[in-house]
């Protein structure tokens, strides 16, 4: 392993991230981690890393850095293009960056979370098993201009070839629009809506007060049944809650683990990823689907990512790059 370095030239709101802290609910620690988990996993998969490896999350802003070593990178999520030495490339592909190059990831035109994965291991301190930020733990690593970041990697373009068009995996890049449809399954307190799930019809708008804890929605007058208090209980990421003022909140990855509000529906895993990309003002409609449909959607997404990771492994193998593949590549940690 050699230590590669990048130097941050310009950074908006950019953090070192991973899939978060799971399994710590019994000590009251929220999951957090990459808002759009599938984009983060995809970026890592494209560079041969384990899907849960540390990577960079760029939130509604830009990043420019200089590579002081050769790097193998992939950019996914909201950014549609990346400039390497002022030459534009598509994101959602594996890209070679030669030492001395400047990489510019522009602020996205739609969507708000972009992921940058780099083959190898980004050196960053972790607590409770994650490098990702948690404001309640007062922990996290934000990239600021002038900062250097080290990456342990075996990539060396001189030995391995530096052709930019080495790869063409053509994995479909998501489209983010100002009107989205989010799939959800029925929640335990759907009877708080006088007309059941039908009461969720219509178009909601994402309010600016939204953050990684929850997305606040307005726009539809809900017809509610008056009922007793609910004792606090564990709530899933993606839970759609009715607040005491009659509005909807969608809980995201920074959510507190327990709540006492009625939960009328729960977003599917991929809808949670979509929601994390929605900027204030985005129009949202909810599509309530059966658990069967939700399970099938999940299985199809996992199968597609699994197939891609095999293609990446094959492509690396063909070039004699097996040492670049993490032992956990293609065995998902999610």
């Amino acid at each position, binding site marked *: 392993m050699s230590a590669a370095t990048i130097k941050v030239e310009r950074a908006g709101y950019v953090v070192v991230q991973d899939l978060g802290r*799971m*399994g*710590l*609910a*019994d*000590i*009251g*620690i*929220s*999951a957090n981690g990459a808002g759009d988990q599938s984009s983060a996993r995809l970026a890592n998969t494209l560079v041969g890393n384990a899907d849960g490896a540390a990577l960079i999350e760029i939130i509604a802003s830009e990043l420019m850095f200089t590579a002081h070593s050769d790097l193998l990178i992939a950019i996914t999520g909201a950014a549609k293009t990346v400039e390497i030495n002022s030459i534009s490339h598509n994101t959602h592909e594996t890209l070679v960056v030669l030492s001395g190059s400047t990489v510019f990831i522009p602020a996205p035109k739609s969507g708000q979370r972009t992921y940058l994965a780099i083959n190898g291991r980004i050196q960053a301190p972790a*607590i*409770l098993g994650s490098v990702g930020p948690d404001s*309640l*733990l*007062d922990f996290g690593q934000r990239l600021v201009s002038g900062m250097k970041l080290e990456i342990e990697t075996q990539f060396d373009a001189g030995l391995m070839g530096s052709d930019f068009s080495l790869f063409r995996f053509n994995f479909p890049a998501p489209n983010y629009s100002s009107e989205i449809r989010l799939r959800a*399954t029925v*929640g*335990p307190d759907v009877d708080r809506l006088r007309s059941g799930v039908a009461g969720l019809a219509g178009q909601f708008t994402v309010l600016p007060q939204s953050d990684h804890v929850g997305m606040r929605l307005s726009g539809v007058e809900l017809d509610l049944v008056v009922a007793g208090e609910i*004792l*606090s*209980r*564990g*709530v*899933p990421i*993606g*839970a759609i809650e009715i607040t005491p003022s009659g509005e909807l909140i969608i809980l995201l990855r920074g959510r*507190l*683990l*327990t709540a006492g509000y009625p*939960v009328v529906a*729960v*977003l*599917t*895993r991929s809808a949670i990823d979509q929601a994390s990309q929605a900027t204030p003002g985005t129009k949202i409609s909810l599509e309530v689907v059966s*658990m069967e449909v*939700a*399970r099938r959607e*999940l299985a199809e997404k*996992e199968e597609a990512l699994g197939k891609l990771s095999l293609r990446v492994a094959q492509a690396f193998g063909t070039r004699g790059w097996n040492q670049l593949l993490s032992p956990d590549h293609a065995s*998902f940690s*999610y």
Partner: protein
Amino acid sequence: MPILVAEHICHEYGDSGILVDFTSEEYEERWQQAQALGNALRSSAEPGLVDVVSTYQNVFISFNPLLASHKSIMDVIETLIKSKPAPRIANVFNIPVAYGQEYGPHLDFVAITCELTPKQVIELHSGEEWTIRFVGSPVGAPFLDGPKIPVSIPRLTTPLARMIPGSVALSGFQSIIYNAPSPGGWQVIGRTPVQLFDLKQNPPVPYHPGDRIRFKPISQREWDAWNKPFHEVRL
């Protein structure tokens, strides 16, 4: 301990979660059943289990949908629910608290709400043991019930953006300790100088559901002597 054969309902809760509702008549029994199932699940090492959150009368379970399914987890629940819960000896913690003034800005409001004097609220809050019903967020907060609060305490009309760590607060008939500088909506009546959440310790909080807490009023002069991580003060 009784053998756990509990009335319950399991709900599929999103594409990778389950909510168990315990429905017996007795509050205390529902809580014991929820805690026993939570403990049994956590020690089951069932593949794909991610988080288990047991609260007053519910257990919320999230699982990795690549390794488990609603059915596989529900089958485990049905087996565990018939097993005998492992007994656990409860610990009692004596937590020092400076009440009122800058430490407890909402003590007067709570006193007026309860038609008591601030001194009587302190006596009520520190007079009897509280039971830790569950440990939740933010960051290892113990959710407590115990002494008979005469009136349900309303939440703050505007939640605080940043609770001072150690804040001891009331809402409804429950009490809580905020370990982290999180937003919060409970009425703060005092603050403990002891740092209960400590990442250098494993587990980072010393207490478990079922343990008990007795609050011990201290004067502001005594604050500094107690202002330490939990493992250095021995409560």
